[in-house]
């Protein structure tokens, strides 16, 4: 399976995430779109890892090439989890004070 396919797929997902961030106003949805971006990256990383692994396999039968990427994905998930906890905490806090999570209403700070 050529790597380009994966790249295309992931970039598409990533961009959809970006578009979501740009077009939605609900903080939670925006945040979800960011998660989508992260996932796209994850998939791409795994794809790369397997690509490198395949390349390395040709040289030596028991290589561990590509493991780092998969671990990287693991760490990304870890971090994402932490981020989500904080992010949702903040969102909830805001919802407590202003009964809205519309990011466009949050423009008291400007200029």
């Amino acid at each position, binding site marked *: 399976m050529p790597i380009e396919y994966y790249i295309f797929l992931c970039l598409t997902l990533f961009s959809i995430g970006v578009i979501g*961030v*740009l077009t939605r106003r609900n903080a939670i949805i925006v945040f979800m779109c960011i998660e989508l971006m992260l996932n796209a990256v994850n998939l791409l990383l795994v794809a790369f890892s397997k690509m490198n692994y395949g390349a390395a396999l040709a040289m030596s039968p028991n290589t561990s090439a590509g493991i780092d990427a998969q671990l990287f994905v693991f760490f990304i998930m870890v971090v994402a989890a932490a981020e989500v906890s904080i992010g949702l905490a903040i969102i909830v806090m805001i919802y407590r004070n202003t009964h809205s999570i519309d990011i*466009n209403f949050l423009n008291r700070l400007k*200029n």
Partner: protein
Amino acid sequence: MALMKILVAFIILWPLAGFLLNGLGRNYWSKKVIAYKATGYIVASFIASIFAFLYVQDHGAVTVHYFDFIHTASLTIPFDFKVDALSSLFLLVITGVGSLIHLYSKAYMQEESSPHYARYFAYLNLFIFSMLLLVLGDNYIIMFMGWEGVGLCSYLLIGYWFSNGSYNYAAKKAFIMNRIGDLGFLLAIFWLIAKLGTVSYNEVLTAESLAKLSNADITGITLLLFVGAMGKSAQIPLFTWLPDAMAGPTPVSALIHAATMVTAGIYMITRSNILFSHSEITQNIVAIIGISTALLAATIAIKQNDIKKVLAYSTVSQLGYMFLGLGVGAYSGAVFHVITHAFFKALLFLGAGSVIHALHHEQDIRKMGGLKSKLPITHITFLIGCIAIAGVPPFSGFFSKDEILAAAFEKNKIYWVLGLVGAAMTAFYMFRLYATTFLGKFRGSNEQEAHLHESPLAMTLPLIILAILSAVGGAIGIPEIMGGHHWLASQLSTIVSTPHEASLTVSTEWILMGVSVAIVATSLLIALSKYSKQTDEEPSSAIGKFFYHKWYIDELYQKAIIEPLNEFSLFLKEFIEKKVIDGAVNGTGKLVQFSARKVRLIQNGQAGYYILFMVVGIITLFLIWFNDIYILRFIHTLTQK
């Protein structure tokens, strides 16, 4: 030599000392002390000058060195003084006439309160000092010092009564017009330095340095020098300050604006006659300017009614004569006329002063008349003065003027004719003045008549002395044909390059004299007959008005030069400075403010937009990086170091 060093220092420093002492002690000394001190110093330096004169007579010219005024790698200007025939003559005239006028002033300025009295004498002494610098200096720089010094003193003395605005204006006018001339002088000096690297007479005025100068140089330098002379000696176009200068006290007019300062120009040109006689063009210009000034001033003088104004214009016209003399190469003649003119013009002014004094500062001749009996001495002396200036033999004026005319005749007949016309007019207006003032019956108010009195001795004594001098002063220059040997010419032969020797045949010269005498005589008789009874009222004829209003030259200057300059500077101040230049400066500040106001609007507070901008930013970076936008690359290569 050492003796000379002391002597010259003596001559120079006495007046300076007088200036300082009177200036500083003005509040402490009584008028008497002040006056005697001031006069005494001048007399002292007069005596010293006599010694100097005698010394030069038997030892020839001497140069005394004190110190280097400027001494740099490229230029050295010594502080030297030169005493030779020319300067010693001027010394005598300046200090001599000077001391007489000091004496005269003692009485004339009596009404002044003592500090101002002291100020007056301090200025006079300072003037003498600067004048001495001017004539004694051994190079053009020192001459220039004196040159500007006398200008300053005349400024101070014209504006002596400083609370009067118009007097101040006159003073300022005088100074500024002089300054214009001085600029010419200065440029001439620079030119000399640029070409020769020196300004000392005995290095500049020599054959080899002349060889270094091209004709263009000489013409340029001499013309610029002449511009300087114009300012100082009130020639066209810079003459209008002199009549206004009559605002000063009368003795000042006598000393500065008749006898000494205004003749500085003649001195300067005579001093550098070698240069002038090497430039045909300049000589002609000098002659033309001279004669035309003479005529112009004469025409104006005919119509004036202020006694001092008449004399002032006559001074201008006499100066014109001198320049004519210089122009035609009769340097000694010019100097001769300077000396005689110093005598009789000083005399006339002082006489006028005594009249004014008697009439309590009445200067309009139409309100005078019949003073003959009231002021006998003044009358006699004044009359002598008039005769002398009119050029009636054997009075001094005749000889000097005749010498100039003769030279003019031989140079160019037209000069001579015009000169004669001028002479005729001189005789006319002088005797108009004399007649209206002294003859006829008194036209002033009664209490003036009541208080009419002859002036005190301190004033009449100078009159008498000057009268004698102007009567017999011609003796120093009696031409050969009259059996004289022209002592003056021989005196100056060392300085004047081409001493003007009478190349005319005896007969022609006699004829010329005859003609001039005849014309002068007729015109003065006309004047006498016309004005001894009545005075002339406001001129009716156009030409009369024209002369009466001094050819409208002041108005012309006002309209053509002064007002435009004022407008121009106002334009610069109000528009260019405020709007254009400062506007640009403040504009940049405003620009920053403006762009600040605009740019901050991007920060609209909405996270969505921020992220959008970020994405756009990333895209831009990509474009710059990969497609390497050409403008940026161009800038880069442009500024690639």
